[in-house]
């Protein structure tokens, strides 16, 4: 039986010591995962800085906690010390109203740019009584933002509307080289963590699943693990192995689609169709287990909901056998294509230093030769008991990232087979019921297909959580992506985006700014 993940190690410090403490930890080799604030009421706004030590296995998780006054919430920015805190601090500025002093770029990232106007009663059609949000266009369009800049729009590259998602990427281009890039997010902001505080723990599981359609198993599993840590219960063996099986199947289907998308982005659409064909086998076996193809609802607090019977395992095994034949064949076809491999070689090189500086996780970090994998660093579910290894590539370019994904699919097939054998003979107990949930905090990390996912859940003894804070793997990786786009050629941008495989969900809008004179190609927006 695998060990529990390490709990949080909280250190309280004064607000003016944050800078020195953060740099002390970073010098010890820590990586800042996230920073977030919670309005704690009387003591003030609580600000947590999450750290982990990647070199230590199992890795230690550390939180620096500080309180700032609610009336005057001012805190010194740590972004000048580490860029890993950049977006986290912008989030604090937006959602909590914390004034982060000396932040280099304190603009809106998630909320609409005319957000203040929407809520203020000075709006001509403002409805102060019901406090419903007014979405009609405002009298004062926002200045100095991503929309009002002088734009020349180019219908950009072959991309699939369903796959590259909700970002508004703006690039300043000089000849063929991208000089500057900026990103506006929030087209998909659904206030999930706010809703989680209002619903009970079992409903929150479904909400967590609906954060992302690609990695819904990881989301519900991480949330369940955090709650299990608070309740201090042990999950049955069969549930642990089923979770591992689901997680690995999810990794396979996400990676195969990402690889197919890379084919699509290099003008090789047949490969996308092959990828969709191969995915169907995985979706079929997931449907047999849970009854749903995409969002499963099978994971619950303390175990799993449905039994996975030996009959299911037989079907899944036959599907895995088909996959073992079709997946290597697919990869060989892709690697035999000179256009595909030549396009990716030496494109978007991410050096180890830059990856560490921005705190890259997942296949992006492993493509640069950094051994970061939460399945190894702080094992969860059954990953300690099955035979597998972390996959790294040392070439650091887009091709290395694709190769990491390819090899991980094959490794996942290997893990799935082992899980099937164990589930078949495991004791039939599925769930350890959660009878009582004491006050406390739970912290859990997992490795979805795209990197590191963390959940921080606090219970106050009632049936709803006190707060939930989560950080998705795309968060640090997109920060890396912007850095990769700067200085690359404009034709390489779709490949770089595809190799990072961001997961914002939403329609994609790529606009190209040509500084100086505007060349109209494709019409003004």
């Amino acid at each position, binding site marked *: 039986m695998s060990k529990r993940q390490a709990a949080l190690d909280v250190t309280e410090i004064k607000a003016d010591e944050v800078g020195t403490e953060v740099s002390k930890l970073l010098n010890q080799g820590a990586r800042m995962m996230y920073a977030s604030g919670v309005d704690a009421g009387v003591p003030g706004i609580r600000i947590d800085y999450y750290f982990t030590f990647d070199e230590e296995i199992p890795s230690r998780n550390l939180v620096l906690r500080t309180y700032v006054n609610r009336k005057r919430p001012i805190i010194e920015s740590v972004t000048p010390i580490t860029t890993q805190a950049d977006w986290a601090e912008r989030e604090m500025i937006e959602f909590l109203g914390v004034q982060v002093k000396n932040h280099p770029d304190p603009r809106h990232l998630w909320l609409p740019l005319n957000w203040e106007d929407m809520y203020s009663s000075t709006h001509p059609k403002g409805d102060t009584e019901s406090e419903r949000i007014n979405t009609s266009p405002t009298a004062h369009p926002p200045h100095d933002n991503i929309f009002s800049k002088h734009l020349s729009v180019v219908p950009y590259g072959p991309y699939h509307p369903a*796959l590259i*998602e909700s970002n508004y990427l703006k690039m300043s281009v000089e000849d063929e080289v991208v000089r500057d890039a900026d990103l506006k997010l929030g*087209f998909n902001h*659904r206030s999930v963590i706010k809703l989680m505080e209002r619903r009970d723990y079992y409903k929150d599981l479904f*909400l967590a699943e*609906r954060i*992302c359609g690609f990695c*819904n198993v990881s989301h519900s599993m991480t949330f369940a693990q955090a709650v299990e840590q608070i309740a201090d219960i042990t999950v049955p063996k069969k549930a642990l192995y089923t979770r591992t099986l689901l997680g690995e199947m999810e990794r396979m289907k996400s990676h195969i689609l990402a690889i197919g998308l890379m084919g699509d982005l290099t003008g090789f659409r047949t490969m996308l169709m092959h990828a969709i064909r191969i995915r169907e086998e995985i979706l079929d076996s997931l449907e047999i287990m849970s009854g749903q*193809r995409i969002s499963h609802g099978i994971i619950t607090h303390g175990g799993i909901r449905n039994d996975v019977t030996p009959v299911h395992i037989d079907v899944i095994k036959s599907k895995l056998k088909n996959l073992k034949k079709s997946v290597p064949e697919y990869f060989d076809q892709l690697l035999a294509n000179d256009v595909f491999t030549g396009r990716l070689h030496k494109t978007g090189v991410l050096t180890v230093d830059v990856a560490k500086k921005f705190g890259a996780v997942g296949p992006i970090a492993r493509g640069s030769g950094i051994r970061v994998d939460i399945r190894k660093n702080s094992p969860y579910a059954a990953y300690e008991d099955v035979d597998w290894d972390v996959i790294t590539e040392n070439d650091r370019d887009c091709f290395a990232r694709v190769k990491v994904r390819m090899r991980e699919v094959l490794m996942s097939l290997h893990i799935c087979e082992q899980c099937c054998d164990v589930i078949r003979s495991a004791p039939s107990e599925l769930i350890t019921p959660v009878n009582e949930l004491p006050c406390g905090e739970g912290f859990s990390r997992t490795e979805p297909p795209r990197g590191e996912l963390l959940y921080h859940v606090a219970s106050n003894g009632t049936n709803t959580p006190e707060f939930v804070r989560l950080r998705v793997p795309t968060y640090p990786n997109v920060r890396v992506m912007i850095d990769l786009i700067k200085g690359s050629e404009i034709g390489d941008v779709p490949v770089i985006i595809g190799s990072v495989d961001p997961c914002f969900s939403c*329609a994609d809008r790529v606009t190209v700014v040509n500084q100086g004179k505007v060349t109209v190609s494709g019409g003004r927006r």
Partner: protein
Amino acid sequence: MSLSGAFLKKSPWVYHAHAGGCNGCDLEILASFGPRYDLERLGIKLVASPRFADILLVTGPVPLHTKPFLERIYDQTPSPKKVVAMGACGCSGGVFVDDENYSIAGPVEKIIPVDVRIPGCPPKPEAIVEGIMKAVRMF
């Protein structure tokens, strides 16, 4: 003057407008245009611009940020046009319906007129095929 819908019955083009949501519906749309379900054999094509689309396939609960873009996409689509709202979020708001949800402007029908709804979270590709065929028969 508008085109008669009779021409469109043969080969309607679909534009997929992602208005928030979790990607689950988008994966299923992709699967329904993939080799197994293959909507293209019915003459239906996924296009990348609303300007030459006949059917708008809208997924997601429409966050505030996306609302003006969705309205603009609807205006850009030439008539006759049909709107298909897809998924639990597109039909009713799904799990995101709440009094204190500050960032959702929709369901889709609050913003643009909807002709066909495909419920499910996410709907299976078979349901998507049927929903789009229903919209096609309305032309």
